[in-house]
């Protein structure tokens, strides 16, 4: 059977100039361009420091503190606090806030959005490519730090029990990805709707999200409530357990809510971005 005629290896197929580029190639093109700009930005340098701080703490713990901390507080307990309180509750939402609100705002401020809007790209693909670049950048900064922190803390007093803890690490990696996706989608929406989205974003994080501590139905209206419930391990030590939220929401429901919220926020962002005019003046 002879091969169908088509472009030779390495050659692009003929361009169809009667329609915009297909969604995936368009988003991939924007992703590549945005990723390079994001990875080498000052914002990423700052975030690398913030997201990498637990590694520094874990090194200090192994080097100096492990002998001074009571044996009943294990390295895994400290790791659990870092995941739930440092990463999921504070730094990941902040990373999402600073990256996602600026996905389009940076292009508007730099007045480079003109170049993207005058290419045959569907606007949803522009936003999708930039959102994927945000997720790629933040995951690339967070996951290695998370794994390093886990390994340093979990093995501080030896390797006993590490085998049973490894599945928790994978679960935490999933929670980190979900946190970045859900907060990122919300802040992308704020970024395309509002001219100055950072203050409303901070208010959401550090005012609205506090309702997670109120008993009743309200924690279900927060992202942190659902995300916190996905972080499985709770330290046995009572004093440390107090740092965690009291109300644990159903895990399965949490996954559905977070994925649905992410999809909804992204869909709304695309809808707004596709209809909005951007006036860039000299």
């Amino acid at each position, binding site marked *: 059977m002879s091969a169908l005629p088509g472009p030779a290896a390495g050659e692009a197929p003929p361009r169809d100039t009667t329609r915009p580029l297909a969604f995936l190639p368009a988003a991939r093109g924007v992703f*590549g361009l945005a990723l390079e700009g994001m990875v080498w930005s000052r914002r990423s340098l700052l975030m690398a420091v913030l997201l990498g701080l637990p590694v520094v703490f874990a090194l200090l713990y192994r080097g100096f503190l492990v002998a001074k901390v009571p044996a009943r507080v294990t390295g895994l307990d400290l790791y659990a606090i870092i995941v739930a309180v440092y990463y999921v509750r504070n730094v990941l939402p902040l990373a999402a806030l600073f990256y996602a609100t600026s996905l389009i705002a940076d292009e508007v401020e730099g007045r480079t959005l003109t170049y993207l809007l005058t*290419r*045959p790209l569907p*606007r949803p693909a522009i936003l999708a490519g930039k959102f994927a670049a945000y997720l790629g950048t933040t995951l690339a900064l967070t996951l290695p730090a998370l794994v390093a922190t886990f390994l340093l803390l979990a093995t501080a007093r030896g390797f006993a029990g590490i085998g049973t803890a490894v599945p928790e690490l994978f679960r935490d990696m999933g929670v980190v990805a979900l946190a970045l996706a859900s907060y990122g989608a919300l802040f992308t929406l704020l970024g395309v709707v509002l001219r100055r989205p950072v203050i409303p974003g901070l208010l959401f994080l550090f005012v609205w999200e506090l309702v997670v501590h109120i008993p009743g139905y309200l924690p279900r209206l927060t992202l942190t409530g659902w995300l916190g419930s996905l972080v499985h391990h709770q330290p046995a030590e009572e004093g440390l357990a107090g740092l965690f939220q009291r109300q644990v929401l159903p895990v399965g429901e949490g996954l559905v809510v977070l994925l649905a919220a992410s999809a909804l926020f992204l869909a709304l962002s695309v809808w707004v971005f596709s209809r909005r005019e951007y006036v*860039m003046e*000299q």
Partner: protein
Amino acid sequence: MTAPLEYARASRWYGPVIALNDVSVAVPPGVTGLLGPNGAGKSTFLKLAAGLLAPSQGEVRLLGRPAWGSPEAFHRVGLCPEVDAFWEHLTGLEFLTALLRLTGFGEKECRERAENALHQVALHDAKDRKVGGYSKGMRQRVKLAQSIAHDPDVLLLDEPVSGMDPVNRRRVIDLVKKMGREGKTVVVSSHILHEVEAMTRRVLLIHNGRILAEGDVREIRDLMDEHPHTVSLRARDPRHLARAVVASPHVLSLSFGADGEWLTVQTARPDEFYSALPEAAVEAGVTEMYSPDEDLESVFRYLVAR
């Protein structure tokens, strides 16, 4: 047959400010100069054509489709925006290849087209330097290169030669004329009459958001020639210069600056005045010359008042 770019009673306002007012015009293939003073509505005219803005009223059609919301048109349309904005961390070559990739070309073709476009604007030698390190003129040229790299049928150029040195200005003017000869539709905006005049004879005169006139640039030139034209010259010996030019029948008035270095001449025939000037300028040691009328502001005031 419809024109590649058409405005049908198109208006655009920003809040209470009218930037473009009930414009109906069809732009045919070839080079069309969009001529008007700063703030006349030139950029809004081009942004509507490029689909960056939607008309508040009326319609703008580009290649037979509504310009707003037709991204597919950008396979065949290039825009050189007025804003001086780039992804500064990219080299000139990377900047162009990235944009060509977003236009749907394969890697090999992206590279070839980018190199060719950079060559056309004489930036090939600087292709591997970061755009952030380019001079103002080079930035203008790389901006132009990205607009032509995909060989568009319609080219929208917003003040393309602003900030360029005379040699590159000439090069870009020749490039624009060449594209016009090739049958492409080129709209080039400027507030400098002689810039547009060097590229085309077909102009749209725009002022206060309205198309005042459309036609041959020579008619504008004739109107200009009727309009008293002011030229200021700085010279080592302005009195010698005054003696040399006062004999010309086209000089209407002369005045000296308070610092004793400047001479301001009002002439009814600027072309003849300029052609007669060099010899006297050398003798009087002219070091600077400018015309406040070059920006067309006064010409437009004159035309509107007629």
